């Protein structure tokens, strides 16, 4: 283990995949073996420039390399998008709790995702399908603004929907001519009979506004607040429960999260802001 939690370990970008006009997946090889649990995040440093938190989108089974899908949103992410193969980076982590996959055993898992929120979800999805027999079903409802904003297109339109035990539907907010699927925000494809509400867990990850509406919908359908799992995105700096930036009520999102049940955080104000 690294003695100094603020010191990143060296890593290198070995490949870059264009996913959408604003999102790229960076394949990163850390200098030494790096293990994480699905849903945990890392602090990725662009040396001398800055760092930002990201959830790896690859399976935790791969310990030699890790995929991180990054949306261009500001300074650090913007400069990362300009990087090429061979770029040296730094990684701190993994941090946070990750998804409680074992508690999903025997249940149906409904995953509602949007935009770059599919990044953590891809890692979760790969983890679930790896032991798909342990779950009754994995039901995916994914969305993006336009068809070209959908990331992981190859998997979404290729293998993933064909996996036994997986039920997948996609939607876009606005379509173009080539799109024959559903048009509408992601909540329009989540139905009350998608899963057995009394024996399932819902995982929601996406932009704040989408998370809010998906959560309200899930509650309306009768899901219990402690069956709704939310990946909370808050301002972060240290990642280790000290700097105070990420607090939601008494929780440090970096340490106690980023995954929370709605039950845990519902009493705090402005959780979606």
């Amino acid at each position: 283990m690294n003695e100094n939690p603020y010191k990143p370990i060296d890593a290198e970008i070995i490949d870059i995949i264009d996913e959408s006009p604003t999102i790229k997946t960076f394949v990163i090889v850390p200098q030494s073996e790096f293990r994480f649990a699905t849903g945990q995040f890392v602090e990725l440093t662009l040396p001398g420039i800055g760092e930002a938190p990201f959830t790896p989108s690859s399976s935790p089974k791969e310990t030699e390399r890790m995929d991180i899908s990054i949306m261009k949103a500001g300074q650090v992410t913007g400069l990362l998008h300009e990087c090429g193969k061979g770029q040296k980076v730094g990684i701190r982590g993994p941090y946070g709790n990750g998804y409680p996959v074992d508690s999903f055993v025997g249940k149906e898992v409904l995953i509602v995702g949007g935009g770059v929120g599919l990044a953590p979800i891809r890692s979760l999805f790969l983890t679930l399908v790896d032991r798909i027999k342990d779950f009754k079903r994995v039901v995916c409802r994914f969305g993006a603004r336009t068809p070209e904003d959908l990331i992981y297109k190859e998997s979404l339109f290729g293998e993933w929907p064909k996996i036994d035990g997986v039920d997948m539907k996609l939607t876009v907010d606005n379509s173009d001519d080539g799109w024959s699927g559903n048009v509408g925000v992601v909540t329009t494809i989540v139905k009350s009979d998608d899963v057995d509400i009394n024996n399932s867990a819902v995982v929601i990850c996406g932009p704040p506004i989408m998370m809010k509406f998906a959560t309200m919908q899930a509650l309306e359908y009768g899901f219990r607040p402690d069956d709704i799992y939310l990946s909370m995105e808050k301002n972060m700096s240290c990642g280790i429960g000290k700097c105070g930036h990420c607090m939601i009520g008494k929780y440090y999102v970096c340490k106690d999260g980023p995954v929370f049940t709605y039950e845990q955080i519902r009493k705090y104000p402005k959780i979606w802001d």
Partner: protein
Amino acid sequence: MDKVFLKNLKPLLDAIAEQMELYVPKKLGDYYSFSRYKPADSAEPVFNNIRVSSPAKEFLFPMREMAAVYGGKAETPDIKPFAVFGLKNCDLRGIKILDCVFKEEEFLDPSYVARRDNMFIISSDCFDPAETCFCNMVGGQPFAEEGFDLNLSKVKGGFIVEAGSEKGQKFVKDNMRIFTDLPADAESERDQIRKKSRTRLDEINAEYLLDNPINEIVEGCYDSPLFEEEAGVCVECQGCTRVCPTCHCFYLYDTKQKDYFGKMKMWDSCMRCDYAAVAGGENPRKILGDRSRHRLMHKFVYFLERYGIEMCVGCGRCVEGCAGGSEVRQLLKKLNEELKDKKHTKVTK
């Protein structure tokens, strides 16, 4: 041998300064600040009646420091033993709070731990609490109970010196030549003085007497418009969080040096508008009242839930230092009244 007597401060401070860097209070107008002790220029060292204005966190968690070096090598500062004289019980309790965060087992903060291990603490009893002091309202006393290496209680003709740690005991043993035996009535005099200071604090804060524990008041009035109203005087200078001995928000930023990169750790403030903003533009505490509520909730509710102690020691620095003239005791008192009204309406309904 845990308690000995000292006639003058100078021999003690000189003996400490022989072994390590020593910081002592210096009088600046009505206030005290810390400065490096130089035996030659200090004919008569200052004994501070109340706490120094700057917070003790500066010795452990400096405003800015290099938290890590990566992608190369740099000289890492070698932290040597140092001593601070003149800390009061509120300072010691503040350090205990910082320990909860920076010495938390799971992620030790290496430079904090190194400084903490190397710090020799010489505290002293408060002689004359100020109008801004309210440690009595948050479970404190105007004299040290734990967390010191040596503690001084001023009495007639000198000071009772008490060792509170192995380091302190060793120091006393090694320096017996500067101490004498305790005069017969010194301890009872000390108890009298301590009682007097405590009574004085109770008088100072009589008008802020609360009917419920602070955490219940703050949490119970969570929705109160008072947070926004009281924040009206705030000029957003963030001074309260800087002078506070327990506030410990910081952010990390990266620097590029000639042959290495550095991750710097710098004080931040939860009162800063963009403190919690994310790249998409969302900000849960855009409104000043929300930030001031969060600050109080963190201090009196969240920290308590998490670590079992409140994150305020009642030192009054934020009261003394507020550019807008806000006063945490007044806010607490108003919230107290509001909660009483709430409870009352509930009962009569």
